């Protein structure tokens, strides 16, 4: 004897409660709602029944069908929730939405924001800001900084030339003569403490192969100061002070011998801060000392060429690469990113 629909319903409720995976649920669904199920057969056979019976049984069967469908749907939801509970354990407290992809403000290249920072630091200490030409004469690139034609030191600067022998500047020292001449007029001979200072941030060019640490186009920041009583130790003090402001930490300075024809004594400067990161230690072969600039007391010949009397005035100058400072401070691994990194790189820097 075939069981009644109510009996089937009870059996289903009983069996469905024990199920705990999707496979069993599917089999059960086949058994109770599939083609060969009692319910399906009942519905199929309706048309052969007499009118009265058909109406009653039809109504009952359809109600049961809806009831069964709901049972299965609920069970399915229950299984989904249970299964995803495991996945969600780590994320239970986080609700996330997609972030807004559209920027509402633009970005500066980090070279610009770093230069702004440096300009602000030096302007605050009384330094003027000047910018170089991109293409300048041989005299300004070399002669006025004590490298007459044929000087072997010009080898250290791999120089581009235009067809008529102008030079895309090899260093921001190309501005030294013009700035010193300007200072020559401004300096107060009577005031022992008077001094004039300037920085020259600008784009420089070297004809050399590019790699992670070298670019044919890079940015330098030159510093020049002249006064009646400016000393070598003042230069070290200014460099230490301004670098601490830029790096936002206390730094140690190490002076090493180096040679530039336009300064004497001429030196390299290395800096180090306490607890340098793994990355910095790796770059510096474990020492933590980073070479950041060349500097020195302005050569008397350079002062003379700018009509400043080296017996009365002394001055110092330095030059550092802005990219290098940023690579050190923000631990950027490749100098080529600054110009070639495009908008994705620019957006990667938060400041």
């Amino acid at each position, binding site marked *: 004897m075939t069981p009644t629909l109510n009996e089937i319903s009870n059996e289903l409720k009983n069996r469905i409660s024990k199920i705990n995976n999707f496979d069993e649920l599917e089999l059960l669904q086949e058994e109770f709602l599939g083609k060969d199920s009692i319910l399906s057969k009942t519905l199929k056979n309706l048309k052969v029944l007499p009118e009265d019976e058909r109406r009653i049984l039809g109504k009952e069967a359809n109600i049961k069908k809806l009831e069964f469908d709901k049972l299965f749907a609920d069970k399915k939801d229950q299984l989904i929730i249970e299964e995803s509970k495991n996945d969600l354990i780590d994320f239970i407290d986080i609700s996330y939405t997609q972030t807004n992809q559209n920027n509402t403000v633009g*970005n500066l290249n980090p070279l610009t924001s770093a230069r702004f920072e440096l300009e602000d630091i030096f302007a605050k200490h009384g330094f*003027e800001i000047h910018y170089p030409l991109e293409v300048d004469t041989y005299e300004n690139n070399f002669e006025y900084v004590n490298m007459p034609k*044929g000087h072997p030191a010009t080898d250290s600067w791999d120089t581009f030339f235009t067809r008529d022998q*102008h030079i895309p500047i090899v260093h921001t020292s190309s501005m030294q003569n013009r700035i010193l001449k300007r200072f020559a007029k401004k300096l107060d001979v009577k005031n022992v403490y008077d001094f004039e200072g300037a920085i020259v941030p600008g784009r420089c060019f070297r004809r050399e192969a590019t790699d992670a640490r070298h670019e044919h186009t890079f940015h330098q920041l030159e510093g020049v100061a002249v006064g009646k009583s400016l000393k070598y*130790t003042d230069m070290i003090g200014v460099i230490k002070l301004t670098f601490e402001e830029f790096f936002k930490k206390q730094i140690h300075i*190490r002076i090493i011998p180096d040679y530039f024809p336009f300064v*004497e004594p001429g030196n390299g400067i290395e800096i180090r801060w306490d607890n340098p990161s793994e990355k910095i230690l790796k770059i510096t072969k474990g020492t933590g000392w980073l070479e950041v600039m060349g500097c020195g007391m302005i050569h008397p010949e350079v002062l003379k060429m700018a009509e400043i009397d080296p017996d009365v005035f002394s001055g110092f100058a330095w030059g550092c690469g802005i990219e290098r400072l940023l690579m050190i401070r923000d631990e950027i691994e490749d100098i080529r990113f600054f*110009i070639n990194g495009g*908008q994705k790189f620019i957006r990667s820097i938060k400041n």
Partner: protein
Amino acid sequence: MKISYNRLKSLVPDLDVDIKQLCSDLTAKSCEVERYYPIRFDLEKIFSGKIVELNAHPSSTKLHIAKVNVNSNSLINEGYLQIVCGAQNLYIGQIVAVVLPGGKVYSSIDKSVVNISVREVLGIKSEGMICSPRELGLGDSHEFILELPEDFQVGIDLLTDGLNPDYIIEIENKSISHRGDMFSHLGIAREVCAIYNKSLKELSHAHSFKIPEVNQKNIFIKNYSEKCKRFSGVVLDNLQVKNSPLWLQTFLYDMDCKPINNIVDITNFVMLELGQPMHSYDYEKLTGEEIQIRDLMDAEKFVTLDNIERNLDKGVTIVGNGNLVYGVGGIIGGIETSINDKTRTIFLEAANFEKFSIRKSSRAINVRTDASTRFEKGVDIDGTLNAIQYAISLLNDLTTCDAITEIFDIYPNPEPDKIVEFDFNQIQRVIGVDIPKDKVVKILKSLGFNTDHSAFVKVDGVNPVVNTSFLNLIIPSFRNDINISQDILEEIIRIYGYENLEPTTPALKLKPIFINQISQFERYTKQLLINNNYSESLSYSFVNPQDYSRLGLNKDELVNLENPLMPELSSIRNDLLPSLVLNLEKHIKSEGLVDIGLFELSRTTRRNIEEDGNYYQPWTLAFIKFSKNKSYYLTINQILFEILNFYNINYSIKYLTELNPESLIANPELFKFSQSGVIECLDNNRKVNVAKFGKASSKLLKTLGFDKNDLELCSINIDLLVKLGKPQSKYDNNWHVTKRNFDVSYICSQSILSSKIVGYISTLQILGMYKVEVSNIYKSATNQFVITLSYNVESNIDFRASLIEINKLLKTEFNLTAKI
């Protein structure tokens, strides 16, 4: 440059600092040590041995079985070893370097350390190995085994006699490019002595040689070149050319200098040790009794000792006789007169050449040698005789060697002692530190300066007065880098120790600060642009002229580089818009279509030359705006007007349609004719274009593949802008008036200038009208545009009626229709 720690110690016998400390002190006080590395410390059990029997390997045509006498008591077989070896240059009686079983050598493949043990090679027992130079850490040669001189004793522990482990110190050449004297072991040894207050070992010329009373060979030296400052030489006879002893070969290998034979090796050794380049000529190959040093009158071909025929330019200094060339002075010798196995007599040269001319010649003939490198930096003018004597004494150790002439020394213009006046007070005044006088003198003495003339005699009236704060320093001849008192200062503080200087800061005198107008403009506009969602986009100043052609621009207007790194970077840009457009193209390619604004501020380089002899290089700001969707409105000019107004500049907008073709802006190809314009200002009554702006031309859009998108461009000449305008605070005394703006779009069937319409409305004197301006260009400046009409709200008038009135007037006057 490389320095051997062992040789350094032999020059400074009581040097007692370890290698690490030494290198760090050298870097801190003297020259930059790039790195140092140990060599041969890994090797073990390397002995000299003699091949006494040589048989073919029964199962290999390439291998030999050698019986080697290593004469060592610790070994079985009475000091004989059987070694299977594949080298082709073995012979009986040969003295070779053998690694004994249990010893270690370097792998010939990757230079890793290999343990050697007794093993069988194709069935034959092999007890150890006969070594190639590479396996002993001597250079890269591995084709043949290392041959020792035939009189070399058997059974010598080579690691203590010739193959000694050593440290090699590598010095950064750039850090000593001004210090020619430091391109030698002696130069570095002098520095080491000064740093640690040690004394230098006297170089012995113990093998005193007899200078012949009568020259057995006649040789006359004639110096016709001013570039040759000194020329010394001697003829040596009865020499035996052979391989150098192991210690010398090892040293040369370590210095990256290939051993050739004992004669050449000694000249190289003297150069590496003393810094004086030397050259040896086969005397028998010299023609005639004269040796001439002269500058070439005409270019000439010459085969140098590396067997390459080179072109010698006119003016190059050569050593030769008559038409014959023996060598290029100070750079490289010739193959004809070079030393070979049969050479018995040599002419040994030690000369000094002017450094600039060597640099020029070595570039002209494209040869750089160890000698030319040293001459370029400057070699001690007093070093030639010393070098010759040292070389003779060393040769005496290696072979028979008789001097058969006296030592010639041609020194036409002896350089006088260089004296530099030094003021002790300068240390405090220029450096800012107080160093006691006796300490200063001690430092200077340790560096070889003669401080004995410390009393400076100052003529005061009639009586000479001794001024004790001055020194008259005599500079040693090897220090040609020292010329002025500032050079002396550096010498003092570096040896005194930079770490002993206390940083100070200058006193700051307050005074008005100079404002850089470019800097001011940059800060203001960049802030404005990023606030309006534009991003900075930097590009190289060097551009590809092909790109200019592709964009339809005239590449002939660019300044070109003579020596570009690559053709893609061969010109200097004259505008920033092409760079921005190319960057946009790159950006869209990598990130897909996005709405984006880009800007760049930089100098640009134009072809015209300014008064100061430089190219005109105006500062330029350019910005572009790209939208995915086409828009018919021109909007980029809003930012431009904002900047112009901030700078209080008097300007008029000239749309391209209003301009004569000849006054068109540069690069009109970039702009769409009907929707672009320039900002015209007066500079000394001359009309100048301060800016250009507009929609991109359809040609440009097509080239970039952006025909379905929208691109607007703007470029400002900052130099002109800051010259003609100034940011100034401005008070609007109509601030209390509440304004109401109406934008009305007009369409005209014929062409008429929007600015004319504005002018017309302004003359109407409409009640309550505050301001009329063209606020947007829709499709074209001449027939579809937007005019903003501003009314004063308090005037209490009927705007609608007024607008209708205006439209009616415009309709009759210009046949203009307001777009609804």
